[in-house]
Protein backbone atom coordinates (compact mmCIF):
# COMPACT_ATOMS: atom_id res chain seq x y z
CA UNK A 1 0.00 0.00 0.00
CA UNK A 2 0.92 3.67 -0.17
CA UNK A 3 1.67 4.83 3.35
CA UNK A 4 1.18 8.29 4.77
CA UNK A 5 1.36 10.15 8.06
CA UNK A 6 -0.66 13.12 9.14
CA UNK A 7 1.21 16.41 8.97
CA UNK A 8 1.87 18.30 12.21
CA UNK A 9 -1.21 20.23 13.38
CA UNK A 10 0.56 23.60 13.23
CA UNK A 11 1.33 23.09 9.56
CA UNK A 12 -2.24 22.08 8.72
CA UNK A 13 -3.62 25.02 10.69
CA UNK A 14 -1.21 27.36 8.91
CA UNK A 15 -2.31 26.17 5.49
CA UNK A 16 -6.08 26.48 6.04
CA UNK A 17 -6.26 29.47 8.41
CA UNK A 18 -7.25 31.99 5.68
CA UNK A 19 -10.38 29.92 4.87
CA UNK A 20 -13.66 29.66 6.73
CA UNK A 21 -15.38 26.84 4.84
CA UNK A 22 -13.20 23.78 4.41
CA UNK A 23 -13.99 20.55 2.62
CA UNK A 24 -11.99 17.82 4.37
CA UNK A 25 -11.63 14.81 2.09
CA UNK A 26 -10.41 11.40 3.19
CA UNK A 27 -9.84 8.24 1.20
CA UNK A 28 -11.06 4.74 1.88
CA UNK A 29 -8.02 3.00 0.39
CA UNK A 30 -4.37 2.86 1.50
CA UNK A 31 -4.50 5.80 3.91
CA UNK A 32 -7.39 4.13 5.70
CA UNK A 33 -5.37 0.94 6.14
CA UNK A 34 -2.37 2.83 7.49
CA UNK A 35 -4.63 4.94 9.71
CA UNK A 36 -3.56 8.28 8.27
CA UNK A 37 -6.51 9.59 6.25
CA UNK A 38 -9.59 7.38 6.42
CA UNK A 39 -13.04 8.26 7.75
CA UNK A 40 -11.85 8.01 11.35
CA UNK A 41 -8.88 10.33 10.84
CA UNK A 42 -11.04 12.76 8.90
CA UNK A 43 -13.39 12.96 11.90
CA UNK A 44 -10.56 13.47 14.36
CA UNK A 45 -8.90 16.16 12.29
CA UNK A 46 -12.21 17.97 11.71
CA UNK A 47 -12.86 18.12 15.47
CA UNK A 48 -9.36 19.27 16.24
CA UNK A 49 -9.49 22.05 13.65
CA UNK A 50 -12.95 23.21 14.75
CA UNK A 51 -11.79 23.33 18.36
CA UNK A 52 -8.65 25.22 17.49
CA UNK A 53 -10.36 27.90 15.43
CA UNK A 54 -13.29 28.21 17.85
CA UNK A 55 -10.83 28.83 20.69
CA UNK A 56 -9.27 31.57 18.61
CA UNK A 57 -12.71 33.13 18.19
CA UNK A 58 -12.58 32.45 14.49
CA UNK A 59 -14.79 29.39 13.94
CA UNK A 60 -14.68 27.35 10.74
CA UNK A 61 -17.17 25.16 8.96
CA UNK A 62 -15.76 21.79 8.07
CA UNK A 63 -17.52 19.43 5.74
CA UNK A 64 -16.28 15.84 6.04
CA UNK A 65 -16.25 13.42 3.13
CA UNK A 66 -14.38 10.16 2.66
CA UNK A 67 -14.23 8.98 -0.93
CA UNK A 68 -13.95 5.37 -1.96
CA UNK A 69 -10.77 6.23 -3.91
CA UNK A 70 -9.45 9.77 -4.15
CA UNK A 71 -7.10 8.90 -7.02
CA UNK A 72 -9.98 7.92 -9.23
CA UNK A 73 -11.86 10.59 -11.28
CA UNK A 74 -15.11 8.67 -10.94
CA UNK A 75 -15.17 9.07 -7.16
CA UNK A 76 -13.64 12.55 -7.14
CA UNK A 77 -16.63 13.65 -9.23
CA UNK A 78 -18.81 12.97 -6.18
CA UNK A 79 -17.38 16.10 -4.56
CA UNK A 80 -18.99 18.37 -7.13
CA UNK A 81 -22.22 19.20 -5.25
CA UNK A 82 -20.22 20.25 -2.18
CA UNK A 83 -17.63 22.39 -3.91
CA UNK A 84 -19.77 25.54 -4.08
CA UNK A 85 -19.87 25.68 -0.30
CA UNK A 86 -16.11 25.23 0.12
CA UNK A 87 -13.38 27.89 0.15
CA UNK A 88 -10.63 25.29 0.19
CA UNK A 89 -10.07 21.55 0.16
CA UNK A 90 -7.96 19.75 2.73
CA UNK A 91 -7.02 16.30 1.46
CA UNK A 92 -6.12 13.38 3.69
CA UNK A 93 -5.35 11.09 0.77
CA UNK A 94 -1.89 10.39 -0.59
CA UNK A 95 -0.37 12.82 -3.07
CA UNK A 96 -2.13 11.01 -5.91
CA UNK A 97 -5.54 11.70 -4.40
CA UNK A 98 -4.83 15.33 -3.51
CA UNK A 99 -3.62 15.97 -7.07
CA UNK A 100 -6.67 14.36 -8.60
CA UNK A 101 -8.91 16.70 -6.59
CA UNK A 102 -6.77 19.70 -7.64
CA UNK A 103 -6.90 18.62 -11.29
CA UNK A 104 -10.70 18.28 -11.23
CA UNK A 105 -11.54 21.45 -9.27
CA UNK A 106 -9.24 24.03 -10.79
CA UNK A 107 -10.73 27.00 -8.95
CA UNK A 108 -10.29 25.55 -5.44
CA UNK A 109 -7.08 25.63 -3.42
CA UNK A 110 -6.17 22.12 -2.26
CA UNK A 111 -3.91 21.48 0.73
CA UNK A 112 -2.39 18.18 1.84
CA UNK A 113 -3.07 17.13 5.43
CA UNK A 114 -0.74 14.14 5.21
CA UNK A 115 2.79 13.44 4.08
CA UNK A 116 2.85 10.56 1.62
CA UNK A 117 5.74 8.32 2.67
CA UNK A 118 6.37 5.13 0.72
CA UNK A 119 5.04 1.90 -0.71
CA UNK A 120 5.19 -0.56 2.11
CA UNK A 121 3.70 -3.30 4.16
CA UNK A 122 2.54 -3.65 7.72
CA UNK A 123 5.24 -5.24 9.87
CA UNK A 124 3.07 -5.43 12.96
CA UNK A 125 0.24 -3.44 14.53
CA UNK A 126 1.11 0.22 14.03
CA UNK A 127 4.36 -0.34 12.15
CA UNK A 128 4.77 -0.01 8.38
CA UNK A 129 7.98 -0.40 6.44
CA UNK A 130 9.14 0.34 2.92
CA UNK A 131 9.11 -2.59 0.53
CA UNK A 132 8.99 -1.31 -3.04
CA UNK A 133 10.60 1.62 -4.82
CA UNK A 134 8.51 1.27 -7.97
CA UNK A 135 11.57 0.87 -10.20
CA UNK A 136 9.42 -0.55 -12.96
CA UNK A 137 11.48 -3.68 -13.57
CA UNK A 138 11.09 -6.04 -10.66
CA UNK A 139 14.22 -7.88 -9.46
CA UNK A 140 12.56 -9.90 -6.70
CA UNK A 141 12.92 -13.06 -8.77
CA UNK A 142 16.71 -12.85 -8.56
CA UNK A 143 16.95 -11.41 -5.06
CA UNK A 144 15.02 -14.12 -3.26
CA UNK A 145 11.92 -12.03 -2.77
CA UNK A 146 13.61 -9.15 -0.90
CA UNK A 147 14.06 -5.85 -2.74
CA UNK A 148 17.55 -4.33 -2.36
CA UNK A 149 16.50 -1.17 -4.19
CA UNK A 150 13.84 -0.32 -1.64
CA UNK A 151 15.44 -1.94 1.38
CA UNK A 152 19.23 -1.45 1.12
CA UNK A 153 20.23 2.06 2.23
CA UNK A 154 22.65 2.22 -0.70
CA UNK A 155 20.31 0.33 -3.04
CA UNK A 156 23.21 -2.03 -3.81
CA UNK A 157 22.37 -4.69 -6.36
CA UNK A 158 25.51 -6.56 -5.30
CA UNK A 159 25.61 -6.20 -1.54
CA UNK A 160 26.10 -6.41 1.35
CA UNK A 161 28.47 -3.49 1.88
CA UNK A 162 30.99 -3.43 4.71
CA UNK A 163 28.50 -1.84 7.07
CA UNK A 164 26.35 -4.91 7.72
CA UNK A 165 26.56 -5.95 11.37
CA UNK A 166 24.59 -8.80 12.93
CA UNK A 167 21.90 -8.50 10.30
CA UNK A 168 21.48 -4.75 10.71
CA UNK A 169 22.29 -1.78 8.52
CA UNK A 170 24.97 0.71 9.57
CA UNK A 171 22.61 3.57 8.85
CA UNK A 172 20.19 2.63 11.63
CA UNK A 173 20.03 -0.42 13.90
CA UNK A 174 16.27 -0.52 13.28
CA UNK A 175 16.89 -1.24 9.60
CA UNK A 176 17.46 -4.87 8.63
CA UNK A 177 20.35 -5.39 6.22
CA UNK A 178 18.50 -6.25 3.00
CA UNK A 179 21.39 -8.37 1.78
CA UNK A 180 21.44 -10.39 4.98
CA UNK A 181 17.73 -11.06 4.38
CA UNK A 182 18.43 -11.98 0.76
CA UNK A 183 21.23 -14.32 1.80
CA UNK A 184 19.12 -15.97 4.49
CA UNK A 185 16.34 -16.55 1.97
CA UNK A 186 18.73 -17.90 -0.67
CA UNK A 187 20.05 -20.37 1.90
CA UNK A 188 16.57 -21.41 2.96
CA UNK A 189 15.75 -21.99 -0.70
CA UNK A 190 18.98 -23.89 -1.32
CA UNK A 191 19.94 -21.31 -3.93
CA UNK A 192 23.20 -19.99 -2.47
CA UNK A 193 24.99 -20.24 -5.82
CA UNK A 194 22.72 -17.47 -7.12
CA UNK A 195 24.48 -14.99 -4.85
CA UNK A 196 27.55 -14.96 -7.06
CA UNK A 197 25.71 -13.97 -10.19
CA UNK A 198 26.82 -10.38 -10.68
CA UNK A 199 23.70 -8.30 -11.15
CA UNK A 200 24.45 -5.81 -13.94
CA UNK A 201 23.92 -2.06 -13.74
CA UNK A 202 20.24 -1.30 -13.77
CA UNK A 203 18.35 0.42 -16.54
CA UNK A 204 16.52 3.14 -14.60
CA UNK A 205 14.41 4.22 -17.54
CA UNK A 206 11.57 2.10 -16.22
CA UNK A 207 11.87 4.06 -12.98
CA UNK A 208 12.08 7.81 -12.43
CA UNK A 209 15.07 7.91 -14.80
CA UNK A 210 12.63 7.95 -17.69
CA UNK A 211 10.71 10.96 -16.38
CA UNK A 212 7.13 10.83 -15.08
CA UNK A 213 5.61 7.49 -15.98
CA UNK A 214 2.36 6.34 -17.52
CA UNK A 215 0.84 3.00 -18.29
CA UNK A 216 -1.22 2.79 -21.44
CA UNK A 217 -3.25 -0.35 -21.91
CA UNK A 218 -4.47 -0.30 -25.48
CA UNK A 219 -6.93 -3.09 -24.71
CA UNK A 220 -8.60 -0.99 -22.02
CA UNK A 221 -8.01 2.60 -23.12
CA UNK A 222 -11.06 4.44 -24.36
Amino acid at each position, binding site marked *: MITAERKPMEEIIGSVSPYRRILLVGCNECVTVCAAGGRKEVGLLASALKMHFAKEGNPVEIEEVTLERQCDPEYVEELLPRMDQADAVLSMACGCGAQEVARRYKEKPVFPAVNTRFMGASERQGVWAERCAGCGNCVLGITAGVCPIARC*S*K*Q*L*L*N*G*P*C*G*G*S*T*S*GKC*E*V*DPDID*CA*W*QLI*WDRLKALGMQER*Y*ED*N*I*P*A*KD*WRTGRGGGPRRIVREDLAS
Partner: protein
Amino acid sequence: MKTESTLEKILAAGHLAVTSECGPPRGALPNKVKEKAELLRGCVDGINVTDNQTAMVRMSSLAACIIIQNMGLNPILQMVSRDRNRLAMQSDIIGAYSHGVDTMLCLSGDHPRFGDHPMAANVHDIDSIQMVDMVRNMRDEGKFQGGEKIDGSPKMFIGAAANPFADPFELRVARLAKKVKAGVDFIQTQCIFNVDKFEKWMEGVRERGLHEKVAIMAGITPMKSVGMARYMKNKVPGMDVPDEVVQRMAGVPKEKQSEEGIKICVETIQRLKEVEGVRGFHIMAIEWEQKVPEIVERAGLLPRPVV
Protein backbone atom coordinates in the same frame (compact mmCIF):
# COMPACT_ATOMS: atom_id res chain seq x y z
CA MET B 1 50.59 -5.25 -18.40
CA LYS B 2 47.17 -3.70 -18.62
CA THR B 3 48.25 -0.18 -17.71
CA GLU B 4 51.17 2.14 -17.00
CA SER B 5 50.31 2.15 -13.32
CA THR B 6 53.30 2.07 -10.98
CA LEU B 7 51.23 -0.01 -8.58
CA GLU B 8 50.62 -2.59 -11.28
CA LYS B 9 54.34 -2.70 -12.11
CA ILE B 10 55.35 -3.13 -8.47
CA LEU B 11 52.87 -5.97 -8.01
CA ALA B 12 53.77 -7.60 -11.32
CA ALA B 13 57.45 -7.59 -10.30
CA GLY B 14 56.49 -9.54 -7.20
CA HIS B 15 57.26 -6.82 -4.66
CA LEU B 16 55.11 -6.16 -1.63
CA ALA B 17 53.36 -2.94 -2.62
CA VAL B 18 52.74 -0.02 -0.27
CA THR B 19 50.02 2.58 -0.60
CA SER B 20 48.76 5.23 1.75
CA GLU B 21 46.11 7.88 1.60
CA CYS B 22 45.64 11.58 1.55
CA GLY B 23 42.32 13.13 2.48
CA PRO B 24 41.89 16.38 0.52
CA PRO B 25 41.25 19.58 2.49
CA ARG B 26 37.82 21.01 3.25
CA GLY B 27 38.51 24.09 1.21
CA ALA B 28 40.38 25.46 -1.76
CA LEU B 29 43.83 24.99 -0.26
CA PRO B 30 46.07 23.24 -2.79
CA ASN B 31 49.08 23.58 -0.50
CA LYS B 32 47.40 21.31 2.05
CA VAL B 33 47.29 18.58 -0.58
CA LYS B 34 50.93 19.18 -1.46
CA GLU B 35 52.05 19.11 2.17
CA LYS B 36 50.30 15.82 2.90
CA ALA B 37 51.44 14.17 -0.33
CA GLU B 38 55.03 15.35 0.14
CA LEU B 39 55.18 13.45 3.44
CA LEU B 40 54.63 10.25 1.48
CA ARG B 41 57.26 10.78 -1.21
CA GLY B 42 59.63 7.86 -1.52
CA CYS B 43 57.83 5.59 0.92
CA VAL B 44 54.71 4.52 -1.01
CA ASP B 45 53.88 3.32 -4.53
CA GLY B 46 50.55 5.06 -4.69
CA ILE B 47 48.56 7.63 -2.77
CA ASN B 48 44.81 7.07 -2.43
CA VAL B 49 42.98 10.35 -2.69
CA THR B 50 39.66 10.01 -0.90
CA ASP B 51 36.34 11.06 -2.42
CA ASN B 52 34.26 13.07 0.06
CA GLN B 53 35.25 10.58 2.74
CA THR B 54 32.79 10.01 5.59
CA ALA B 55 30.26 11.86 3.41
CA MET B 56 31.81 15.26 4.14
CA VAL B 57 32.49 17.73 1.34
CA ARG B 58 36.16 18.04 0.50
CA MET B 59 38.21 19.14 -2.47
CA SER B 60 37.35 16.69 -5.25
CA SER B 61 39.48 13.59 -5.49
CA LEU B 62 40.10 14.32 -9.15
CA ALA B 63 41.41 17.85 -8.51
CA ALA B 64 43.65 16.68 -5.66
CA CYS B 65 44.89 13.77 -7.81
CA ILE B 66 45.99 16.22 -10.49
CA ILE B 67 47.90 18.28 -7.93
CA ILE B 68 49.64 15.12 -6.71
CA GLN B 69 50.29 13.87 -10.24
CA ASN B 70 51.99 17.18 -11.02
CA MET B 71 54.31 16.63 -8.06
CA GLY B 72 55.63 13.50 -9.76
CA LEU B 73 53.84 11.18 -7.32
CA ASN B 74 51.28 8.45 -8.08
CA PRO B 75 47.76 9.33 -7.00
CA ILE B 76 45.01 6.71 -6.83
CA LEU B 77 41.64 8.22 -7.68
CA GLN B 78 38.98 7.09 -5.24
CA MET B 79 35.45 7.25 -6.57
CA VAL B 80 32.23 6.58 -4.68
CA SER B 81 28.91 5.71 -6.28
CA ARG B 82 27.09 7.86 -3.70
CA ASP B 83 27.67 11.24 -5.36
CA ARG B 84 27.72 10.63 -9.12
CA ASN B 85 25.67 8.89 -11.73
CA ARG B 86 27.38 6.84 -14.42
CA LEU B 87 27.76 9.80 -16.78
CA ALA B 88 29.66 11.86 -14.21
CA MET B 89 31.78 8.86 -13.24
CA GLN B 90 32.84 8.08 -16.77
CA SER B 91 33.63 11.69 -17.61
CA ASP B 92 35.72 12.04 -14.45
CA ILE B 93 37.54 8.79 -15.24
CA ILE B 94 38.55 9.90 -18.73
CA GLY B 95 39.33 13.34 -17.31
CA ALA B 96 41.58 11.83 -14.66
CA TYR B 97 43.33 9.63 -17.17
CA SER B 98 43.88 12.65 -19.42
CA HIS B 99 45.94 14.11 -16.60
CA GLY B 100 47.97 10.91 -16.23
CA VAL B 101 46.02 9.38 -13.34
CA ASP B 102 46.11 5.67 -14.14
CA THR B 103 44.97 3.94 -10.95
CA MET B 104 41.63 4.13 -9.23
CA LEU B 105 39.56 2.62 -6.44
CA CYS B 106 35.83 1.92 -6.85
CA LEU B 107 33.68 2.24 -3.73
CA SER B 108 30.06 2.65 -2.78
CA GLY B 109 30.94 5.31 -0.19
CA ASP B 110 29.83 6.07 3.33
CA HIS B 111 26.15 6.84 3.65
CA PRO B 112 25.32 10.57 3.97
CA ARG B 113 23.79 9.75 7.36
CA PHE B 114 27.33 9.75 8.76
CA GLY B 115 28.50 13.02 7.26
CA ASP B 116 27.65 16.67 7.66
CA HIS B 117 25.15 16.68 4.79
CA PRO B 118 22.65 14.09 6.00
CA MET B 119 20.03 15.95 3.97
CA ALA B 120 21.73 15.10 0.68
CA ALA B 121 20.22 12.76 -1.92
CA ASN B 122 22.03 9.48 -2.54
CA VAL B 123 22.80 8.76 -6.16
CA HIS B 124 23.80 5.07 -6.19
CA ASP B 125 22.97 4.76 -9.87
CA ILE B 126 25.39 1.82 -9.91
CA ASP B 127 27.17 -0.04 -7.11
CA SER B 128 30.89 -0.58 -6.61
CA ILE B 129 30.91 -3.95 -8.38
CA GLN B 130 29.08 -2.50 -11.35
CA MET B 131 31.58 0.39 -11.32
CA VAL B 132 34.52 -2.04 -11.51
CA ASP B 133 32.85 -3.73 -14.47
CA MET B 134 32.24 -0.37 -16.15
CA VAL B 135 35.86 0.80 -15.76
CA ARG B 136 37.23 -2.55 -16.97
CA ASN B 137 34.97 -2.32 -19.99
CA MET B 138 36.15 1.23 -20.67
CA ARG B 139 39.77 0.03 -20.52
CA ASP B 140 39.62 -3.37 -22.20
CA GLU B 141 36.80 -2.94 -24.69
CA GLY B 142 37.23 0.80 -25.18
CA LYS B 143 33.54 1.33 -24.66
CA PHE B 144 31.36 3.52 -22.52
CA GLN B 145 28.76 1.70 -20.51
CA GLY B 146 26.15 2.88 -22.99
CA GLY B 147 27.97 0.86 -25.65
CA GLU B 148 29.55 3.66 -27.72
CA LYS B 149 33.24 3.55 -28.54
CA ILE B 150 35.60 5.74 -26.50
CA ASP B 151 38.06 7.77 -28.53
CA GLY B 152 41.12 7.30 -26.31
CA SER B 153 40.14 4.81 -23.65
CA PRO B 154 41.38 5.27 -20.08
CA LYS B 155 43.84 2.55 -19.08
CA MET B 156 43.01 2.37 -15.41
CA PHE B 157 44.45 -0.13 -12.95
CA ILE B 158 41.30 -0.95 -11.03
CA GLY B 159 40.97 -1.35 -7.30
CA ALA B 160 38.14 -2.01 -4.91
CA ALA B 161 37.71 -2.44 -1.18
CA ALA B 162 36.90 -5.52 0.85
CA ASN B 163 35.83 -5.72 4.45
CA PRO B 164 36.59 -9.18 5.87
CA PHE B 165 35.05 -8.16 9.20
CA ALA B 166 31.52 -7.23 8.21
CA ASP B 167 28.57 -9.58 8.41
CA PRO B 168 27.55 -12.05 7.19
CA PHE B 169 31.14 -13.40 7.36
CA GLU B 170 30.28 -16.32 5.08
CA LEU B 171 29.56 -13.88 2.25
CA ARG B 172 32.82 -11.98 2.50
CA VAL B 173 34.83 -14.30 0.28
CA ALA B 174 31.88 -14.71 -2.09
CA ARG B 175 31.53 -10.96 -2.47
CA LEU B 176 35.24 -10.70 -3.24
CA ALA B 177 34.67 -13.35 -5.92
CA LYS B 178 32.00 -11.09 -7.45
CA LYS B 179 34.50 -8.21 -7.57
CA VAL B 180 37.05 -10.51 -9.21
CA LYS B 181 34.43 -11.58 -11.72
CA ALA B 182 33.75 -7.91 -12.48
CA GLY B 183 37.46 -7.48 -13.26
CA VAL B 184 39.09 -5.90 -10.24
CA ASP B 185 42.92 -5.82 -10.27
CA PHE B 186 43.70 -5.01 -6.66
CA ILE B 187 41.94 -4.91 -3.32
CA GLN B 188 42.59 -2.70 -0.33
CA THR B 189 41.01 -4.15 2.78
CA GLN B 190 39.35 -2.54 5.76
CA CYS B 191 41.79 -1.77 8.63
CA ILE B 192 42.97 -5.02 10.16
CA PHE B 193 43.12 -5.24 13.94
CA ASN B 194 41.68 -8.73 14.28
CA VAL B 195 44.48 -10.58 12.50
CA ASP B 196 43.07 -14.02 13.32
CA LYS B 197 39.82 -13.23 11.57
CA PHE B 198 41.66 -11.74 8.62
CA GLU B 199 43.73 -14.91 8.31
CA LYS B 200 40.56 -16.96 8.36
CA TRP B 201 39.17 -14.84 5.54
CA MET B 202 42.40 -15.25 3.58
CA GLU B 203 42.10 -19.02 3.97
CA GLY B 204 38.73 -18.83 2.25
CA VAL B 205 40.22 -16.54 -0.41
CA ARG B 206 43.02 -19.04 -1.11
CA GLU B 207 40.67 -22.02 -1.15
CA ARG B 208 38.98 -20.44 -4.14
CA GLY B 209 42.25 -19.31 -5.72
CA LEU B 210 41.12 -15.69 -5.64
CA HIS B 211 44.53 -14.55 -4.34
CA GLU B 212 45.97 -15.51 -7.73
CA LYS B 213 43.45 -13.40 -9.60
CA VAL B 214 43.57 -10.22 -7.54
CA ALA B 215 46.33 -8.52 -5.55
CA ILE B 216 45.18 -8.18 -1.97
CA MET B 217 46.65 -5.30 -0.01
CA ALA B 218 46.11 -5.47 3.72
CA GLY B 219 44.65 -2.34 5.29
CA ILE B 220 46.63 -0.98 8.24
CA THR B 221 45.75 1.90 10.55
CA PRO B 222 47.95 3.11 13.41
CA MET B 223 46.02 4.10 16.53
CA LYS B 224 47.03 7.28 18.30
CA SER B 225 45.44 6.57 21.64
CA VAL B 226 43.25 4.19 23.59
CA GLY B 227 40.42 6.66 22.96
CA MET B 228 40.77 6.14 19.23
CA ALA B 229 40.88 2.36 19.72
CA ARG B 230 37.65 2.46 21.72
CA TYR B 231 36.02 4.77 19.22
CA MET B 232 36.89 2.48 16.32
CA LYS B 233 35.73 -0.55 18.25
CA ASN B 234 32.38 0.89 19.30
CA LYS B 235 31.43 3.58 16.83
CA VAL B 236 32.71 2.68 13.38
CA PRO B 237 30.45 0.19 11.58
CA GLY B 238 32.24 -2.79 10.08
CA MET B 239 35.36 -2.26 12.20
CA ASP B 240 36.64 -5.14 14.33
CA VAL B 241 38.99 -4.10 17.14
CA PRO B 242 39.54 -6.99 19.57
CA ASP B 243 39.52 -6.32 23.31
CA GLU B 244 43.17 -7.29 23.68
CA VAL B 245 44.18 -4.48 21.29
CA VAL B 246 42.22 -1.95 23.33
CA GLN B 247 43.69 -3.37 26.55
CA ARG B 248 47.20 -3.19 25.18
CA MET B 249 46.71 0.49 24.31
CA ALA B 250 45.15 1.13 27.73
CA GLY B 251 48.05 -0.64 29.43
CA VAL B 252 50.61 2.03 28.60
CA PRO B 253 50.77 5.60 29.92
CA LYS B 254 48.99 8.20 27.83
CA GLU B 255 52.18 9.80 26.48
CA LYS B 256 53.39 6.44 25.20
CA GLN B 257 50.15 5.31 23.60
CA SER B 258 50.93 6.69 20.15
CA GLU B 259 54.23 4.79 20.12
CA GLU B 260 52.34 1.66 21.20
CA GLY B 261 49.93 2.21 18.32
CA ILE B 262 52.82 2.37 15.85
CA LYS B 263 54.32 -0.78 17.39
CA ILE B 264 51.05 -2.69 16.98
CA CYS B 265 50.84 -1.51 13.42
CA VAL B 266 54.41 -2.60 12.57
CA GLU B 267 53.91 -5.99 14.26
CA THR B 268 50.68 -6.47 12.29
CA ILE B 269 52.50 -5.81 9.03
CA GLN B 270 55.28 -8.25 10.00
CA ARG B 271 52.73 -10.94 10.77
CA LEU B 272 50.72 -10.30 7.62
CA LYS B 273 53.84 -10.51 5.43
CA GLU B 274 53.78 -14.23 6.22
CA VAL B 275 50.19 -14.69 5.05
CA GLU B 276 50.08 -16.26 1.61
CA GLY B 277 48.20 -14.05 -0.79
CA VAL B 278 48.94 -10.72 0.94
CA ARG B 279 50.60 -8.68 -1.80
CA GLY B 280 51.08 -5.41 -0.05
CA PHE B 281 49.88 -2.93 2.52
CA HIS B 282 47.56 0.02 2.44
CA ILE B 283 48.40 2.31 5.34
CA MET B 284 45.57 4.58 6.38
CA ALA B 285 47.08 6.96 8.91
CA ILE B 286 44.06 9.14 9.50
CA GLU B 287 45.26 12.76 9.94
CA TRP B 288 48.61 11.24 10.90
CA GLU B 289 50.31 11.02 7.51
CA GLN B 290 53.64 12.12 8.95
CA LYS B 291 53.98 8.74 10.65
CA VAL B 292 53.74 6.74 7.42
CA PRO B 293 57.47 6.91 6.51
CA GLU B 294 58.40 5.66 9.98
CA ILE B 295 55.88 2.79 9.81
CA VAL B 296 57.05 1.77 6.35
CA GLU B 297 60.68 1.89 7.44
CA ARG B 298 60.18 -0.02 10.69
CA ALA B 299 58.14 -2.63 8.81
CA GLY B 300 61.15 -3.24 6.56
CA LEU B 301 59.43 -1.99 3.43
CA LEU B 302 62.01 0.65 2.49
CA PRO B 303 63.48 1.53 0.10
CA ARG B 304 60.61 1.32 -2.36
CA PRO B 305 61.66 -0.58 -5.48
CA VAL B 306 62.09 1.42 -8.67
CA VAL B 307 60.11 -0.12 -11.55
